[in-house]
């Protein structure tokens, strides 16, 4: 269903916001819960940490505000834009974590619990689901993003390509590599 772009008079915009931003904001306001759930679900399966996923989701929407002028006012476009921001945030998170782990390892300090550790459980025997989450979380961020967009957000290759800023062929290649890697890691589980 395509949403109306008028917003029903509920939206108050800044005087300097252009008309396109007004329309996008109206759409976002009308369907905020649906957009929020979509982004949250994606980020939850990127980081496997509920609190962190909530934080990143909120940050995604705050960042959207500053780029509303560049968003075309359609439901699909808005969702693509949100997932693109969310992907960048998740990738940034993994980059930060990588550096943090490298520094901690260099200084001989315990690296602390990661989201994957939390997903698996505190030393308990990992369940099959936890094994899968661990394997997904251990993928390189670019491969992880295509796996999550494909299997948890159920997007087409074209949509994924738009979000990731690459060609659909590249998405397929990346997904194929990720699947091979997951198979090796999960072994008999699949």
């Amino acid at each position: 269903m395509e949403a109306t772009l008028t917003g029903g008079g509920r939206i108050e915009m800044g005087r300097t916001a252009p008309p396109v931003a007004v329309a996008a904001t109206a759409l976002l306001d009308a369907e905020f819960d649906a957009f929020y759930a979509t982004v949250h679900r994606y980020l939850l399966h990127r980081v496997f940490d509920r609190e962190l996923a909530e934080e990143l989701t909120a940050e995604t929407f705050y960042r959207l505000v500053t780029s509303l002028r560049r968003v075309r006012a359609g439901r699909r476009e808005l969702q693509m834009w949100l997932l693109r921001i969310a992907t960048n945030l998740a990738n940034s998170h993994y980059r930060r974590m990588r550096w943090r782990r490298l520094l901690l390892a260099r200084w001989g300090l315990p690296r602390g619990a990661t989201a994957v550790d939390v997903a698996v459980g505190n030393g308990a025997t990992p369940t099959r689901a936890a094994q899968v989450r661990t394997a997904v979380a251990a993928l390189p961020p670019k491969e992880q993003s295509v796996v999550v967009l494909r299997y948890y957000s159920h997007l087409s290759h074209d949509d994924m390509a738009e979000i990731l800023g690459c060609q659909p062929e590249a998405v397929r290649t990346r997904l194929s590599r990720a699947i091979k890697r997951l198979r090796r890691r999960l072994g008999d589980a699949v």
Partner: protein
Amino acid sequence: MYEEDTGLGRVLESAALPAAPSAARAQAVHERMRELTRTPVRRQRRWPAVVASGLLVIGAGTFGVAGTETGRALVRYLFTKIEPAHGVTGTQPDGSSWSVVRHGPGAEPFSPAEAQAVTAQMDEIAATKQAGGGRLAQVIESPGHPSIPGAERIFTTYVIEYTLADGQTTSIGDNAPSPAQRANMRLDEIMRLHDAGAGEIVFQAPFPMGTGRYTIRFTSSDGQTVDVGTYYPPAPRAEREALFAELRQLKQDRRFVVLNASRDPEGRVSGMLRYTLSDGRSVGIAEEVPANVITPDGKYIAAPAGEEPVEIQNAAQQP
């Protein structure tokens, strides 16, 4: 070929977490977004941070340039235009050499016609000099320098004003007026009066040269008066010699300040040296700067630690 795995897809979906976002958190984010969208776009660009960053960069750059010696030297090097001086030199019939220098911003070399005119003018002056012409305009006394042979004692320069055939007036500093000039201008008598401390001050201006600028009126034996400019008040020669001896000592001890310095076409560095006498008087003398206070690269007057070195103008004209 690309590979998709429906079996793996089922496994992955089975590991999905229950994705129920916090309703309260979603509501808070929604409210916050509404607030942000009410904020004019220009305010969302964090311009204060951008402006602050710009000011920080400008401030750091300014400090780097103005607050460090290296920065100042770099600016001097980049922006100081070396103005070459242009000169015409020659020799008079009595063997004394002369030079006419043109310098300063925009100074251009003498054209052949100009050089010829200058030479003709100097030839005319030389002829007038030999004939005893000219008028004594000023007497300049300098203390000399102990390291220059023959210049240990008071060094006197007579500034003689000539009126040329075309009506133009020009002043020439001359260390050795012709015998005819000495007689006509009564130079020996005037200098005797000067050395005796005679004369009446008819004009006085404060220091920049010597201890000040004075016009002293001398009355010769035939009753005629001659006004002579000098940089020292009337006093017996012994007093001036004592003053100059102190200056020489100060110069030898390198206790002077160079206010400006420039290099002439022959490579000599001259400047305004300011001395402070033991009685507190300041004395300024335009003279050659001692070589031992010039930096090895020939571009600056060396300064004590913490003080700004004085740049030598026309430093490029090293011999």
